[in-house]
């Protein structure tokens, strides 16, 4: 795989994002294009990741988990970054759209993060000898995911839409504090998890496949966010048009 191919995929993805945001008439089909493109990219990733890419120097074929584990975690971090951006935007200027996008991105971030952790656990067994280790990176990632699960639980349990939006925006900003801790945990503490790979530590063919994996799952992230956003908007519209729920007045006989 030539190194420019992932870059071309990223350019197409950015074009789709711009079309979704800037061209209202394109919103009916952008998610379909993203889903179809993601499926094609995934088929290519299956070939490049499982067949074409060379085995890793020490992990051999087990190293092929890299091409799905890292993209899932990256998609998770991108989703949480969208979430906190929406939370800040909501607190600066109240908008149901940013609130719905925050909800959508948080849920999808939890999904990608949970699958990424599951893949990491599968990868740990043949390389570390254990399915799980209480290592700084794994602990901080777990805490981050639990924080966002709590965020989603708070949203589902709070009935008042305005209070839900404002409080969850504050919770999102607090939850995002965990993200840099996750990122730097492998550098700040003595971690069993390796530090982030760089261009100098990954061979070119492996790097190209890794970037292709990132583009693939970011394309799915776009398709999922659009559909989950539509769902959040539909629920929002329904909730906002309903009359306020009042507790029935009852008299207690003494």
């Amino acid at each position, binding site marked *: 795989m030539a190194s420019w191919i992932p870059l071309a995929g990223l350019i197409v993805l950015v074009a789709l994002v711009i079309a979704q945001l800037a061209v209202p008439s394109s919103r009916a089909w952008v998610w379909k294009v993203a*889903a179809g493109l993601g499926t094609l990219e*995934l088929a290519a990733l*299956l070939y490049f*990741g*499982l067949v074409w890419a060379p085995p890793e*120097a*020490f*992990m*051999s*074929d*087990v190293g*092929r*988990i890299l091409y*799905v*584990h890292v993209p*899932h975690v990256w998609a998770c971090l991108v989703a949480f970054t969208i979430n906190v951006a929406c939370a800040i935007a909501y607190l600066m200027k109240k908008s149901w759209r940013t609130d719905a996008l925050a909800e959508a991105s948080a849920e*999808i971030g939890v*999904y990608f993060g949970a*699958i990424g952790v*599951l*893949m990491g656990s*599968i*990868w740990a*067994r*043949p*390389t570390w000898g254990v399915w799980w280790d209480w290592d700084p990176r794994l602990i901080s990632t777990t805490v981050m995911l639990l924080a966002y699960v709590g965020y989603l639980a708070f949203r589902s349990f709070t009935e008042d839409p305005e209070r839900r939006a404002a409080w969850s925006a504050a919770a999102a900003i607090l939850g995002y504090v965990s993200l840099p801790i996750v990122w730097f945990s492998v550098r700040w503490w003595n971690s069993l998890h390796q*530090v982030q790979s760089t261009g100098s*530590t990954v061979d070119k063919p492996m790097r190209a496949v890794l970037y292709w994996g990132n583009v693939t799952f970011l394309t*799915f992230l776009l398709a*999922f966010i659009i*559909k*989950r956003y*539509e*769902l959040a908007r*539909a*629920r929002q*519209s*329904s909730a906002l*048009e*309903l009359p306020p729920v009042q507790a029935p007045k009852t008299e207690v006989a003494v």
Partner: protein
Amino acid sequence: MKWLSLVLFLSLPVLADIAKPPPPAPAAVAPEPQHPQGIEKVPMGVIEGGWAYVYAAWGAGLLGLVGYAVSLYVRRSEAPPPGAP
């Protein structure tokens, strides 16, 4: 003079101890690779096999994609349309 010669003769082993050792012979084998972060020794070896773990991880990713897409589809049909009572 005889005594001095005797002392020098007896101190030869001591002088030999503090004398510079001969330079080490070049190693016959290449030195062990060093970890880029400076860790002294990294267990060297190649994991053999392990395709079951690869398939399990990739399978989890594929199942996750399909599962989440299905969940979105199911919830889409459950979502109340805008304006519904």
